[in-house]
């Protein structure tokens, strides 16, 4: 009897304590928010990954086409063995893989060479118009990566594909060879012309954070300029260089638009386009295996990068104090170098845009003479002789609808990820030393590892049928918003975390001691203080989504098409002027938003 009553007492004490813990949990907002986030993130990030792996390892109903008699849902290694070793594995996997690798290596080396030299010239020499050069040099990075590819087609289109020819043949009269028009070489060049600006940003940042005193100390002991560059400056920025190399590689692996425009016409495939083709043909498990491989490559490179960054922390001198920096005098080379830089910017940055704009003013494609000038593709009324009777883009309700979709999608996504990022930031900053905080931080980072096209592929199957409480989202606008939001979360979370860490625990705690409820604290302290960080993150996500193609190309339906995916469709149909006009419209929208961001960031710097 006694034992029993004691047991009962114990129970009531533990139950009371459990109740107390629950109450305390509910009183601690970051824990509640963190728990909700963990559940959502697990569902939207881990869930799809698991589904994807499961799909590749089980028989699917579409397999009945060539494997009759199997029962869908049972385990099999069939898909893996077919993709890795089967009859079609060469064209399905190994060739695209080799192409992807070759292109990615080529792009990262080229982009690094261009970006690195340009960064050194801008940061460390007395090159004239340095400010203007750096403003121009970063333009490509804010544009979609395939803009240059479209311009390339305008110039180098040749006869072999059929249809009209490009500017090159118009001027020289000779048809450019196939290797120059399509395939690995133009893809590598176009991507390098895009990604160099990324390397430029990273390396110029690292270069300008090197304290000149480090170099002066070497000068004091009699080192020459070349020795200083080789033995001091270069080793210090080496981690930034490696980081640029690796990240460019990882992005090039996942890139989609450029290989579509410059590869598909000659049946040249990379992993991303092969994944897309498999998806279109409903070889879902094949597509998923390719997606998993891409995620693996991407994760490995990102891991390598974090290793390097961790090592870097020990020797890049980043500090609040202003560095004096002495500029290298270019001397007699100044003229030539200036000319080279100007030439590069003109050909690599401005010319593609000019050519694209020009194309939109040509009534008949391929005729570059002034008499062919038209505004038809911009404001023309429907005319069955041109563009299959479609009206100019500015009076074409379908295209304006697409523009509206683009803006709507970018705005909604930016708003959702902005709020989510702030919440993540709050949870991570408050729970920095807790398991919860770290788990949320790690989970939000995961989508960064998944190439966009693979990510889109996952969401396509996961949400094309009702899933738990979520109805089928196939073809809806919601699935675009959902996909874009989760994929952009790593970026907005990062800015949310840094902004919340800056606000610091004390500012909120002071309000807590004053008796303010959690809601009041958020409304009166945290939100006002993180406003400018929120706005900057909002605009960056906005631009990213405006130019996004590979992420949503699998998910759009006729009613939810955006400008980017319309470009793809029109160019596929050979209506290049229309596609290019849409691209020009998109580029204009992006450049305007970009300008707005700079204004916001500048005014933010001035007020702080």
């Amino acid at each position, binding site marked *: 009897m006694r034992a029993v009553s004691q047991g009962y007492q114990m129970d009531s004490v533990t139950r*009371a*304590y459990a*109740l*107390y813990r629950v*109450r*305390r949990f509910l*009183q601690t907002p970051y824990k509640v928010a963190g728990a909700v986030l963990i559940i959502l993130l697990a569902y939207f990030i881990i869930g799809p990954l698991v589904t994807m792996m499961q799909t590749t390892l089980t028989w699917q109903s579409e397999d009945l086409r060539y494997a009759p008699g199997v029962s869908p849902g049972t385990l099999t290694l069939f898909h893996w063995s077919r993709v890795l070793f089967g009859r079609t594995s060469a064209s399905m996997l190994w060739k695209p893989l080799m192409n992807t690798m070759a292109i990615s290596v080529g792009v990262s080396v080229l982009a690094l060479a261009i970006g690195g030299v340009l960064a050194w010239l801008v940061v460390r020499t007395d090159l004239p118009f340095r400010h203007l050069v750096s403003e121009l040099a970063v333009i490509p990075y804010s544009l979609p990566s395939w803009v240059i590819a479209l311009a390339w087609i305008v110039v180098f289109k040749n006869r072999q594909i059929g249809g009209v020819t490009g500017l090159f043949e118009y001027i020289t009269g000779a048809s450019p060879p196939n290797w120059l028009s399509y395939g690995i070489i133009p893809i590598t060049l176009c991507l390098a012309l895009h990604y160099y600006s990324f390397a430029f940003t990273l390396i110029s940042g690292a270069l300008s954070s090197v304290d000149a005193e480090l170099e002066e100390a070497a000068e004091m002991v009699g080192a020459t300029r070349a020795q200083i560059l080789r033995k001091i400056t270069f080793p210090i920025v080496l981690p930034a260089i490696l980081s640029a190399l690796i990240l460019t590689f990882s992005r090039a692996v996942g890139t989609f638009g450029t290989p579509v425009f410059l590869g598909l016409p000659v049946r040249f495939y990379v992993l991303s386009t092969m994944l897309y083709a498999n998806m279109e043909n409903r070889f879902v498990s094949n597509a998923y295996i390719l997606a998993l491989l891409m995620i693996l490559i991407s994760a490995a490179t990102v891991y390598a990068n974090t290793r390097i960054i961790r090592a870097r922390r020990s020797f890049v001198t980043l500090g609040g104090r202003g560095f004096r920096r002495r500029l290298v005098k270019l001397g007699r080379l100044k003229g030539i170098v200036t000319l080279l830089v100007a030439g590069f910017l003109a050909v690599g940055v401005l010319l593609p845009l000019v050519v694209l704009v020009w194309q939109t003013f040509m009534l008949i494609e391929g005729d570059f003479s002034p008499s062919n000038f038209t505004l038809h593709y911009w404001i023309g009324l429907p005319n069955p002789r041109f563009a299959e009777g479609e009206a100019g883009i500015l009076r074409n309700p379908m295209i304006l609808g697409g523009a509206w979709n683009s803006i709507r999608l970018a705005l909604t996504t930016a708003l959702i990820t902005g709020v989510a990022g702030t919440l993540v930031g709050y949870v991570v900053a408050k729970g920095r*030393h807790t398991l919860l905080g770290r788990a949320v931080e790690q989970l939000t980072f995961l989508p960064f590892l998944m190439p966009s096209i693979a990510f889109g592929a996952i969401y396509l199957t996961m949400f094309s049928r009702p899933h738990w409480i979520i109805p089928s989202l196939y073809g809806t606008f919601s699935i675009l918003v959902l996909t874009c939001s989760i994929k952009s979360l790593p970026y907005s979370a990062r800015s949310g975390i840094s902004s919340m860490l800056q606000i*610091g625990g*004390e*500012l909120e*705690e*002071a*309000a*807590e*001691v*004053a*008796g*303010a*409820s959690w809601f*009041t604290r958020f409304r*009166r*302290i945290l939100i*006002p*203080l993180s406003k400018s960080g929120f706005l900057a993150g909002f605009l960056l996500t906005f631009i990213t989504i405006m130019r996004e193609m590979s992420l949503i190309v699998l998910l759009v339906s006729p009613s939810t098409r955006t400008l980017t995916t319309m470009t793809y469709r029109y160019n596929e149909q050979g209506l290049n002027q229309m596609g290019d006009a849409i691209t020009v419209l998109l580029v204009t929208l992006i450049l305007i938003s970009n300008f707005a961001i700079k204004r916001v960031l500048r005014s933010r710097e001035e007020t702080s």
Partner: protein
Amino acid sequence: MPGIVLKNVSKKFGKVAAVNNVSLEIGDGEFVALLGPSGCGKTTILRMIAGLEEPDDGEITIGDEVVFSRRKGVFVPPGRRNVGMIFQNYALWPHLTVFSNIAFGLEIAGVPKDEIRRKVQAALEMMQIQGFENRYINEMSGGQQQRVAIARMLVTGPGVFLMDEPLSNLDAKLRLDMRAEIKRLHADLGRTCVYVTHDQVEALTLATKIAVLDKGTVQQFAEPMELYRVPANLFVAEFMGNPALNVLHGSVREGRLVVEGFGELEAPAGTLPTAAAGVIATLRPEDVLVYRTHEPGSVEARVHSVLPTGPEVIVRARCNRVTLTIRQSPESDVKPDEVIYVKPRQGAVNVYDKRSNTLICACV
């Protein structure tokens, strides 16, 4: 005014015990300094009193109200504990004006507008920062910000003031001004104050009682002069005083104390155990008496270096292979390499057990 009682309070961060079974009784209107090196748990204790940190175990009472009890399952949130707090970095809200910063707590409490205006004015006057109400925080100097932080703490009239190293970000002169300000405030308002600091001078000058902490436990809780004169253990002894006191190894044989440097020291009968193999004797720098000629009980020493600081001169001297730190008045004219005679002031030596580091006998 409410007192504060901590009973067996513990708090772990991960595997590290930040606060380990601490009990403290802080009386009404007392000014208690929590003093200790960084990582000793002093800020954690303050934050647990404020309710910003939840203890793993124990009970905390403010006035008559239990604000935390693990056993009873009680946790009163910070806003309802009737405490005011100054944070180490002030935690003044940069997006609000001085007026709004101070008025915030009153607005939360639903105080009518004109009364808020009156109360904020009074707080501004008290801290002598009238005329700054429309400034933003980053338009004010460090000292002015400190005054705003104090005004914000005062204005809601809490029964307890909690201060987390409030002066550590100020320069030496301002620190002295604000120290005087805080002491005056305590004298005028008589509120119970808990003040976290790692600066012993700050603790000694401000507090009515000091709790010295190390590794999450209270080493000694006593009035300032007692703490200074009779430290309960070697940690407290070595932590208090600047420059640090002289630590002399020794032993007790047949009731007589023998220490290195000085040899045998006379002790009042019955104060020492008859024998102890290892003891440590401490002697503060100002309790070393210096003579030019041999005096009874003094030993010979050679001056090693002379370090004048203005109001005093610190002399380092070698005495039988032990280096002694000696505090002298500025008139002292000893020179390096000079031979002097030194002897401990009567009743100034404390004797500690070498193994347990605790006090055996005070005032030898």
